[in-house]
């Protein structure tokens, strides 16, 4: 296992009067894909939002590359090289695909200043984006929006990608496309923390896994081990692989 690039230690998060995270501990190793699994309401999305500083940790620490970031504001966290794809994808519906991409490239002032080699690579992963480059993002299908959200997060080189349930609500064929694109991304040794409800996606992509329940991490290990152990899956996630096939 590579050394951790991102670490959470004893993280508690409150949202108003609600205590959502109760001491979350796990590491995200550099250059690998870590899956964050768990039932609905386990605290997965809150964990990602806490890492991004969108909700502040009330206790504990979030460290990135050895430095604490839990007191930083969201823009400062993003500028460290942490890209976030939220559950709702965060697409700017009134803007074109090109404008969405331009926004993510902080150094570029116009679309012409985008890194063309990187764009070509992204178009290779997500061909629909090239086809609909000047179309309003709000008119894309759910799968295309998800591809735009992920491509946007990668339009500049990032050190970590946080992706929240990319397969949610997508048709099976589109999920397969998404897996292919994320596999290609994985080949580039990008560090990824991926929240996912779809166990097939998790199995296809994950190197490591942290399973959450009731605001805590209840299991950490290698994804392949969890995928091979149906009893453990059933106990941790209330499912078995066979039931999903």
């Amino acid at each position: 296992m590579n050394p951790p690039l991102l670490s959470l230690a004893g993280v508690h998060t409150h949202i108003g009067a609600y205590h959502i995270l109760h001491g979350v501990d796990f590491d995200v190793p550099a250059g690998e894909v870590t899956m964050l699994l768990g039932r609905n309401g386990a605290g997965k999305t809150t964990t990602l939002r806490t890492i991004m500083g969108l909700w502040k940790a009330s206790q504990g620490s979030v460290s990135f590359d050895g430095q604490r970031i839990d007191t930083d504001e969201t823009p400062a966290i993003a500028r460290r090289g942490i890209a976030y794809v939220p559950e709702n994808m965060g697409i700017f519906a009134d803007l074109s695909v090109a404008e969405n991409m331009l926004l993510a490239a902080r150094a570029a002032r116009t679309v012409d200043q985008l890194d063309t080699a990187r764009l070509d690579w992204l178009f290779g992963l997500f061909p629909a984006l090239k086809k609909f480059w000047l179309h309003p993002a709000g008119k894309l299908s759910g799968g295309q929006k998800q591809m735009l959200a992920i491509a946007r997060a990668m339009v500049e080189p990032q050190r970590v990608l946080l992706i929240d349930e990319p397969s949610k609500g997508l048709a099976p064929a589109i999920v397969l496309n998404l897996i292919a694109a994320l596999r290609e991304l994985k080949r580039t040794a990008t560090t990824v923390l991926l929240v996912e409800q779809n166990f097939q996606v998790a199995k296809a992509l994950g190197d490591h896994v942290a399973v959450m329940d009731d605001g805590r991490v209840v299991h950490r290990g290698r994804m392949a081990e969890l995928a091979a152990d149906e009893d453990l899956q059933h106990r941790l996630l209330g499912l078995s692989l066979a039931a999903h096939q």
Partner: protein
Amino acid sequence: MSSAVAPAPQLAAEAIPKRRFDFVPIGLLALLMLAAWPATGSTSTWITLTLAGLAMGMIIFIAASGLTLVFGLMDVLNFGHSLFIALGAYVATSVLGFLSGWTAAPALALNLAAIFLALLAAMTLAGVLGLGFERVIVRPVYGQHLKQILVTLGGAIVGEELIKAVWGPAQIALPPPEALRGSILLGEATVDKMRLVSVAVGLVVLAVLLWTLNRTKIGLLIRAGVQDREMVESLGYRIRRLFVGVFAAGSALAGLGGTLWGMNQQTVVPQIGGQVNVLIFIVIIMGGLGSTLGCLIGALLVGLLTNYVGFLTPKLTMFSSIGLMVAVLLWRPQGLYPVTSR
């Protein structure tokens, strides 16, 4: 599940509509003008009223454009906007009073230079006041709508009293410069010269605003921030800084709008901001909160309708704007050009 990946499904480009512009609100504007033509009784009267309405609409748009972006970006309800309008108008009275030698001369260039300096001073001071207002009054109440209404309204009241202390409570004359007094004839229609100046200034502001919003990265950030400010922050941009800039620019535009309003009314009273503010809120709600284009079309609709109704049935003038807003919201509850994702 097989680990093999299925080929990408064919994506139907035709299935995705390209960006289609919604012409219906603009059609409504044209319909209103056409409907008023026979009602006013003569073409010359209609031209006069239409140009007066467009001028009034442009002034309201100038004053309102900043407020709609401030709401769109940060969800801030700023009832203190009236203060910047009033300050702009009063600063203009002082500047034009100081430059009375230029304004009394029958030379158009000198008159326009005086107006330019008055507008510049009004915008600068209103913008600087806006920066202070945001820092002291608005920033402590981010995310708290009720408190925002109370403290910004309180700030406006305090500001109005300070204006009375500096310039006095009585109304002050703000006559147009010598060469811009009176009207010109367009066929048989008489058109007030100051209204033409207002339309010209409004068109320049509109062009600059549209260029900034649609052709610059800052404009792109503003448009994105209006839709989803959290995502803009997650992309690494400090949206609060952007908001402060928009707040100051919006305040400066309110100062500009106040000056033009005062010049068209030819008098300035301490309550001038409150008078315009009512129309501004009607316009930004009707246009779609956060929408610049909606704000423009809403302002032109209010300006035109106020002038037509003022001529045809003066007693209904004030009701006409509110009635228009109610009708528009019944038709499009999110406004003429709703901002997606809000």
